[in-house]
C-alpha cells in the first residue's frame, strides 16, 4: 500500500509533532464535514508490480496490432518505421521527467531541442516561424482558423471537404463557440473545386483551409488557391503531411500563410491515436499572432548562445483572457521524437522514405485496378495514399481481409456518402511488395 511514498510511520509521527498535531486528520480541519468522504473510495484492490504487469499484458493482448497484421490503414495515422535511436533518446529521464522549460538555466536540453525542431518545421514547410508544437494536427488546424480570424478581424472560414473529416469536426467545435462561421468547399476529381471556391469566397473570409495531400491522398494545386484567397484579403491555411514535404513543393513557396499538420509520422508510434503532435508554422508578418510556446535564441551573461521561451506576451500566464490561445503546453516529448527522427533520416533519408512510400503506393494502386477488380475514383495525382472503389461492400471486404491477417483501408463512405464503395488505402515504406501482392490477391478473390 502507498507505493512511491517514502516517509515511514516514524517520519510521519515526527513531522506531526513538529506541527504540534497528533493526527493526520487534523490537517483536514478546513474541509467542512459535509463534504468529507465518509467511506473509502470504491476502487479495485491495489496491485503489486508483478500483478500490475500481468494485468496490463492481459488487457494489451486483447488488441490486434500492426506487428501481427499487415496494415493498409492510414487516414491520419500511419504505420511507419521508427529508427531505434528515437526510443533510446526519449527514454532519457532528463527529457521525459522534466517540466516545461520555465527555468532556462537547467532546461537547455529541452530548449535547444525545440529550437532545432522549430527549424526543421520551418525547413519542411517553407515558413518563417514555427511554434514548439500543439496537441495534434486537428487541434492545430482549429487554432489556425482562430488565429486567422484574430489576424484579419473577420469571422468566416471556408474549409475544403477534402480536409480530414475529424480535423474538420474539431474546426467546427472550436469555431462554433467563438462565433466563427464555417462553410465547406466541395471537391472535383478529388481536389478542391476551384470554381466553387471562387463562388464562395468574399472579402469577409478570414481563412481558406485546405489539406495537402488531402484526405483522399490527392495532391492539391496550392498556388492557384493561394491566389484566390489573397485576392480577397484572406489567409491560406494548409494542413500537410510532413513526410510528403521531403518531395512536394512546400506550402510556404505556394503562398500559404499558416501551415499545420499531424506530426505522428515523424517517429511517433500509432498508440491508438495519441499522444501525437501538431505542428504549426507561419510567416514573419504573423509571428506575434501564433499561439503556443516558442523558443528563441539569446545569450547568457558570458555571451554564449543559449535558448529561452520567448514572445510570452502572447500567452495566458501574462495576458490571461487576452491571450492568443489558452494553450500553455506543447507535446514536447513527441516533438523531440520528431526532431530525433528527422535527424536520423536527414536530408536524404526523408526523401527516400517519401519516395519508397510513394512508389509502393503507386504499385498497389495499379495492381488493385489491373488485378483485383477495383476501379479508380479520382484521376488526380496522389502521394502514398489513394481511394479506389472496391467491388464488394467495404466493411465486408475489411472483415474478410482481417481473417487473412490484413488491416484494410478506410471506408470513406462513412464521411462521404457520395463515395459509396470508396476505400482509402495507405502504403508506407514499411509495406513490402510481397505484402502488397497478398493484399491484391485477397481483394481479387472477392
Amino acid at each position, binding site marked *: 500500500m502507498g507505493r512511491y511514498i517514502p516517509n515511514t510511520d516514524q517520519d510521519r509521527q515526527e513531522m506531526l509533532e513538529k506541527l504540534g498535531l497528533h493526527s493526520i486528520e487534523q490537517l483536514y480541519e478546513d*474541509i467542512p464535514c459535509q463534504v468529507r468522504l465518509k467511506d473509502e473510495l470504491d476502487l479495485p484492490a491495489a496491485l503489486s508490480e508483478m500483478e500490475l504487469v500481468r494485468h496490463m499484458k492481459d488487457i494489451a493482448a486483447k488488441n490486434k496490432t500492426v506487428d501481427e497484421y499487415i496494415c493498409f490503414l492510414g487516414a491520419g495515422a500511419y504505420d511507419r518505421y521508427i529508427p531505434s535511436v528515437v526510443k533510446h533518446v526519449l527514454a532519457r529521464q532528463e527529457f521525459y521527467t522534466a517540466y516545461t522549460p520555465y527555468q532556462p538555466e537547467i532546461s537547455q536540453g529541452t530548449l535547444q531541442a525545440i529550437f532545432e525542431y522549430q527549424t526543421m518545421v520551418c525547413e519542411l514547410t517553407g515558413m518563417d516561424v514555427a511554434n514548439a508544437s500543439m496537441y495534434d494536427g486537428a487541434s492545430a488546424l482549429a487554432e489556425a482558423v482562430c488565429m486567422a480570424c484574430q489576424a484579419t478581424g473577420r469571422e468566416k472560414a471556408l474549409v475544403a471537404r477534402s480536409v480530414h473529416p475529424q480535423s474538420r469536426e474539431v474546426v467546427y467545435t472550436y469555431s462554433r463557440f467563438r462565433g466563427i462561421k464555417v462553410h465547406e468547399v466541395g471537391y472535383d476529381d478529388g481536389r478542391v473545386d476551384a470554381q466553387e471556391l471562387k463562388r464562395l469566397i468574399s472579402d469577409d473570409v478570414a481563412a481558406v483551409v485546405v489539406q495537402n495531400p488531402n484526405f483522399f491522398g490527392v495532391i492539391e494545386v496550392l498556388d492557384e488557391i493561394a491566389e484566390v484567397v489573397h485576392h480577397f484579403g484572406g489567409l491560406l491555411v494548409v494542413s500537410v503531411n510532413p513526410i510528403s514535404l521531403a518531395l512536394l513543393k512546400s506550402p510556404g513557396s505556394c503562398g500559404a500563410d499558416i501551415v499545420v499538420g499531424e506530426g505522428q509520422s515523424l517517429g511517433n508510434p500509432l498508440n491508438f491515436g495519441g499522444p501525437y503532435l501538431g505542428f504549426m508554422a507561419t510567416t514573419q508578418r504573423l509571428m506575434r499572432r501564433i499561439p503556443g510556446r516558442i523558443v528563441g535564441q539569446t545569450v*547568457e551573461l558570458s555571451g554564449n548562445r543559449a535558448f529561452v521561451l520567448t514572445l510570452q506576451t502572447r500567452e495566458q500566464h501574462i495576458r490571461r483572457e487576452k491571450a492568443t490561445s489558452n494553450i500553455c503546453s506543447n507535446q514536447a516529448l513527441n516533438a523531440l521524437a520528431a526532431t530525433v527522427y528527422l535527424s536520423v533520416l536527414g536530408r536524404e533519408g526523408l526523401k527516400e522514405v517519401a519516395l519508397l512510400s510513394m512508389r509502393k503506393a503507386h504499385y498497389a494502386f495499379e495492381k488493385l485496378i489491373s488485378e483485383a477488380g477495383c476501379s479508380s475514383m479520382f484521376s488526380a495525382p496522389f502521394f502514398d495514399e489513394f481511394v479506389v472503389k472496391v467491388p464488394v461492400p467495404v466493411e465486408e471486404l475489411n472483415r474478410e481481409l482481417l481473417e487473412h491477417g490484413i488491416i484494410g483501408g478506410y471506408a470513406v463512405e462513412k464521411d462521404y456518402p457520395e463515395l459509396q464503395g470508396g476505400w482509402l488505402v495507405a502504403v508506407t515504406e514499411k509495406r513490402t511488395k510481397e505484402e502488397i501482392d497478398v493484399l491484391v490477391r485477397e481483394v481479387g478473390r472477392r
Partner: protein
Amino acid sequence: MKERPLIFEMSKPGRKAYSLPDCDVPHLALEDMVPRECLRDDDARLPEVSEVDVVRHFTRLSQLNYGVDSGFYPLGSCTMKYNPKVNEDVAALSGFTQVHPLQPAETVQGCLEILYRMDRLLSEITGMDSFSLQPAAGAHGEMTGLMIIKAYHQHCGDVKRNKIVVPDSAHGTNPASAAMVGFDVVEVKSNDRGEVDLEALKAVVDDTTAGLMLTNPNTLGLFEGNILEIADIVHKAGGLLYYDGANMNAILGIARPGDMGFDVVHLNLHKTFSTPHGGGGPGSGPIGVKKELEPFLPVPMVGFKDGRYYLDYDRPLSIGRVKSFYGNFGVVVKAYAYIMSMGAEGLKKVSESAVLNANYLMELLKGYYLVPYNRRCMHEFVISAQRQKEKGVSALDIAKRLMDFGFHPPTMYFPLIVKEALMIEPTETESKETLDAFADALIEIAREVEEQPEKVKGAPHTTPVRRLDEVRAARNPVLRWKP
C-alpha cells in the same frame, strides 16, 4: 564555456544515420507520379549526421536538463511527483503502441477497455458521473468543460449567460480558456483569508452568469471552506460550477468535487496521476461531468454492451470533437496503471502525505520567510520574499540560487495576488530528509540575503548556463537556425 553546436552545424554531406531497404517495386520516376510543378526545387535542409552523432548530441542535450529523477522539483500547482518506471514499461507494450486508432472495434477491445475503465475510476475518485478522456491537457480540458457549460445553457434556451466568474487567484488558463469559448470573464476577489469573498461573489453573479471556475484547494494551497455556500450562490443564480483539477492531489479519498457541488471537473493525469510531464507534454486533461451534462461530452464515448466495448457516436447533443481520435491514449494507460497500483487506500495516503509534507515544509520555513496566509495549508503553500526584497533580493533571485543547491526552484510570482510569491508543492513522493535539506537550503539563502546579497543576485553560479538575456530574445526574435 564552449558553445554546444546545433545538430545542423554538425551536418556533413554524405553522412547518414539511417538504413532503408531497397525498393522492391518498380522504380517509377518521381515526375511520372507527380507533375513537376508540384515538386520542390530545393531540399529541406535537414542535417546529415551519423547515428553516433545523433545519440551523442541528444545525450549531451539531456545532460543540460533537470528532471524529477535528478532531484526535488517543488513546482507549485504542477505536482511534480515521481513517475513510476513500471508505468512506462506497460504503456510501451506493443499491444498498446502498435494499434491503429481506426481499426475495427473488435480488434481494439483492450484499448477501449482501458478508456472505459478509466471513465469509471475517475468518476468514482471525483464523485462525477461520466468522463471523456479526449482532452490532451489541462487547458484543453478547461476549454472542453466550458464548451459543455455553454452548450448546456444554450440547450436550455438560456442564451444570455455569457459570463464566467474566476477568482483573482485563478490559474491564467482559466480566463484564457473562457475567452476561447467566447465567454466574458468576470474576476472575483479573494478575502483576507485567501478564499473567495462570498459578498463579492454574490455581487457579480446574476442571470448572465454561465459558471464559476474554481480550484479547490485554491492556488494559495488553501481549502475553500465555504465551498457549499459558493456552490449554492452560483447554482441559485442558474450558473454551473467548474472544478480546475490542478490541485486534486490534496484530496484523493478525502473529499470529492462531485460532493462539493461541482458540475464539471477536469483532471491533469500528468499531475495527480503520476504521468511524466515530458518537458512540457504530452499530458492528458480528462473532463468529467454530472449526469445532466453527459449528453454534451465530446464524441465518441466508449460504451459497453453484451460483453463488448464500442465507440458511441450517436450523441446528438455532443459539443463535437476537440481532438482527433480518443485523446492521449498512451498517457491514459500510464495513469490507469498508477491507479491500479495504488488502490483506494494508497490514493488516500498519497494525499495525506502530500498535505503533511507541505505543512511540515511550511513550518520549517516560517521563521525565515513571510507566509502571507499563515494557516493550515493543503498540498502546497505560498511564501513571499517581500522581506528579502527590502534587501534588494527578489523571489526570482532566490529561485535561481536554489539551483546552486541542486534543487529545482518553486513556481515564482504566482498566484498574482501575493507579491514576490514562491509557491511550493513538495508532493508525497519526497522524504522527510529531502524536505529538511530543501528547507536548509532556503534558510541558508535567507542568511546569504542578509550577509552577501550579491551572491544570491548573481545566481545561479553552477548551472550549465548562467542567467539569460530574455529581453533580447523577445526584442530581436531568432526563432530558427539559418545557415
